[in-house]
């Protein structure tokens, strides 16, 4: 059986070994990491400010399909970068925003849109919150009205009989 000190010794050795392995791993060139390869990327540059603002708008409206809760402009994913470039290329060629959106939806479906189209499938999505809101307001108003009515017929107010009784008591005094 190992004594406690031996155990401690062993533990610290394993720890030291782990740190060495970790250190060596850190020295490995980053390009050994798995991931898509391709030519080095150049920054996307615009000459026309209108095209640039269209590009920025679209990159915010379009979803990155790899990291699904990010839009294209937020995402570092390789695919997001490719799609941003595609958007930029199309806009520079003179395509308008609608054409770019159509292009993306043809390939990736409605899912790529952060602003889903208004149609039968997405009706609940668009209308649902308003329906709930009006339902809430309706309930609230009903409740307020009910409370008011209750106040008008205030139970603490005296009935005719009670009033007579009260006068009788006061007179007798």
């Amino acid at each position, binding site marked *: 059986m190992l004594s406690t000190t031996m155990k401690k010794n062993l533990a610290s050795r394993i720890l030291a070994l782990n740190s060495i392995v970790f250190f060596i791993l850190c020295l490995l060139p980053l390009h050994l990491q798995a991931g898509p*390869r*391709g030519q080095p990327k150049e920054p996307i540059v615009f000459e026309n400010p209108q095209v640039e603002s269209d590009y920025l708008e679209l990159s915010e409206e379009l979803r990155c399909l*790899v990291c699904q809760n990010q839009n294209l402009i937020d995402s570092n994913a390789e*695919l997001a970068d490719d*799609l941003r470039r*595609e958007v930029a290329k199309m806009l520079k060629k003179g395509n308008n925003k609608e054409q770019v959106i159509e292009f993306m939806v*043809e*390939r990736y*479906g409605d899912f790529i849109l952060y602003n889903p189209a208004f149609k039968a499938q997405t009706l609940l999505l668009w209308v649902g919150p308003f329906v709930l809101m009006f339902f809430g307001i309706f309930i609230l108003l009903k409740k307020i009205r009910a409370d008011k009515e209750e106040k008008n017929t205030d139970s603490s107010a005296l009935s005719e009989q009670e009033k007579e009784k009260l006068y009788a008591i006061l007179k007798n005094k």
Partner: protein
Amino acid sequence: MKKQFMTPLIIFGLLVVLLVVGLMKAKSVRDVPSPLIGKAVPEFSIPTVEDQEKVFSNKDLKGQVSLLNIWASWCVSCRAEHRLLNLIAGQGIKIYGINYKDELSDARRWLSAYGNPYVKSAHDITGRAGIDWGVYGTPETFVIDKKGMIRYKHTGPVYQQDIDEKMLPMIKQLQAES
């Protein structure tokens, strides 16, 4: 029980049902439905991995039922499904490949190391063909009919179950179509 207690209870019950349905569906949320199903394969014409002098184009996908598999040497799940692809290719199923954003030498090394189940693979170094195919995560596998129409899409590695229950029956059925 009084009515005023029932109302919140009913609302709560409905909410639970809604959330449970949402949770059950969550499994399939990652699978983005492909708008390409029922459409002709996108046009492309790209030099092949095996021989850069030869091209693989959308015209090659007409006249037979085939699978089209998007793969890459850097893609770990592609390696997971590779054995199965070799297996079904050996059974006579035609599999075409699109090698997505890969270095030629890496792609070739991969094929010689793990076997080549593909009739041929397009070397899509830029990933542009991938965009036309709506690729968002390798591996992806499409079933293509004789007319060159996309009939089914599977995202992620293919497992035996997917092949037995979905792809093989579908291929058989499509082969029977004229």
